[in-house]
């Protein structure tokens, strides 16, 4: 097997959510002397990106995506042990959360996952997140983008408030917004910089916002 075969196998195990063979496959990768960073990015993450495409095309549902993510995480755990600290590089730092007043998490978690595998460092503040938590995180570690999600129309006001509050402290911060109740009109009204309908689009928009 050459390196590409090993990487393809990792990608396929993620796509097929094969939790029985992923541990052995990752150990084989390390035994073959393949760089663990390469194995993550061109094996596991590549597989997860394909999963994102299958989800967008409605070939996979949420159960499949969740199971693929489990296999991805199992693989990451093994491979990351062999990565020396500071060796991995990130395309940018994203602070993400579902806005205050809303505790829906599935969509936001899929966006987080896809940004993660695309090579961004994603800090997930969870759900029902107020302005203060975001500002505090930005004071600690900064960010290139703040990504906000809401499914409920009653939390749109909270999204607008967060953008206003964060902008008061970080005038140059860029905002990506999304979620079932968010429309292009809201993007203009709130002064956000990007809007994405789904996780794959979110990755594209974030790439263009950070390039």
């Amino acid at each position, binding site marked *: 097997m050459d390196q590409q075969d090993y990487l393809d196998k990792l990608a396929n195990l993620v796509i097929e959510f094969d939790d029985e063979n992923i541990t052995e496959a990752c150990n084989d990768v390390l035994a073959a002397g393949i760089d663990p960073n390469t194995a993550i990015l061109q094996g596991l993450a590549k597989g997860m990106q394909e999963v994102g495409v299958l989800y967008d095309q*409605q070939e996979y*549902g949420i159960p499949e995506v*969740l199971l693929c993510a489990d296999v991805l995480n199992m693989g990451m755990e093994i491979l990351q042990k062999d990565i020396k600290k500071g060796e991995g590089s990130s395309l940018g730092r994203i602070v993400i959360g579902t806005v205050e007043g809303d*505790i829906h998490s599935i969509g936001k978690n899929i966006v987080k996952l896809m940004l993660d595998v695309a090579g961004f460092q994603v800090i997930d503040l969870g759900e029902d997140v107020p302005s203060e938590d975001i500002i505090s995180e930005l004071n600690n570690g900064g960010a290139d983008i703040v990504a906000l999600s809401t499914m409920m129309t009653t939390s749109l006001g909270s999204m607008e408030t967060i953008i206003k509050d964060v902008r008061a402290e970080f005038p140059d911060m860029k905002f990506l917004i999304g979620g079932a*109740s968010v429309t292009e009109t809201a993007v203009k009204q709130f002064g956000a910089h990007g809007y994405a309908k789904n996780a794959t689009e979110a990755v594209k928009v974030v790439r263009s916002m950070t390039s």
Partner: protein
Amino acid sequence: MYTVSPKEEIIAVLSGEDLGYFPRSIPVFTPVVDMMKIVNAYFPSANYNGQEMANLAVCSHSLAHWNATMIPWASTVEMEALGCEVINKEEDIAGYPQCKKNAFDDPFEVSIPEDILEKGSFPAVFEATRIAREQLDKEYQETIPIVSMFQGPFTIASYIVGVNKMFKYTIKDKERAAFVLDKVADLLIKYGNTMLESGGDLINMADPVAEGLMPRVFKDLVVPTYRKITESIEVKKIIHVCGRTQKIAPLLPETGFDAFSFDYPAIDVAFLKEALEGKMKLVGSVPTVTHFLEGKPQDVIDMSHWMIKSGVDLLSPSCGLPQYSPLENVKAIADAIEIWNSRKN
């Protein structure tokens, strides 16, 4: 122009009869803040108090002329009674309760207590239905139908055992998934029939979480559960699933529901006309955010007319109304039907 009452119209249309005009009942109602201010009944209280719930339910016709109403609106009624931790913010007069923590760790632990319909806000739902029935019948001479709404089995099952876990069980542990779905179906049959005994005329079951499923899982696990429910509830029944339902829609005629309330623009009318092959009626679907919340009354009217032209059998919002939608936009969908029928005749 109208030959029968709105209540008779909706049942006739769902039975496949042609009225010769567009039916006036709009069967997917949730209250807006403008209504709350007028009748002085607000969330979260109105989701738990029968009288307040009834006062808001009646607004659907008294203030917006929808020729129908729907009770209840909170998606957490069943989950809360089953033991989920639900959060309400007292200061948020428009906010719906949200389910924060699941009630069971393992689906095999799920059991439905004998007295379940006495728990949580179930009694308030029955009381609201009785009061609204009495008030509507008195004021509008028994012409206005009440749609009794409950959450679907996949949505309830997901919240009571944990959404991510339930999704994974559908592939990795079907036995557990089927077990909890069956228990929930038993509850829904009991709940649905009690709502009807309290004064409901037809059923709307909303199963939003099922949108995340692919056809094989939907067919194996969810369709049999839906069938169990529909076979045990006699009246006309609508099913609502939000979002991208292209993959599961073709399976819906097997479920025993009479109509599909769909979510435009996530799914298109033309696609559904073909996928359902005339085996189910279509209910929908004026987009909630872009039209009711952000649009003007004329936008709602134009979209309503486009929906009618496209072939829906009953008009409704695409999902629950955004609570801050202006009342004039809410009224506009009913105006659209009157305009359509008057032009046609």
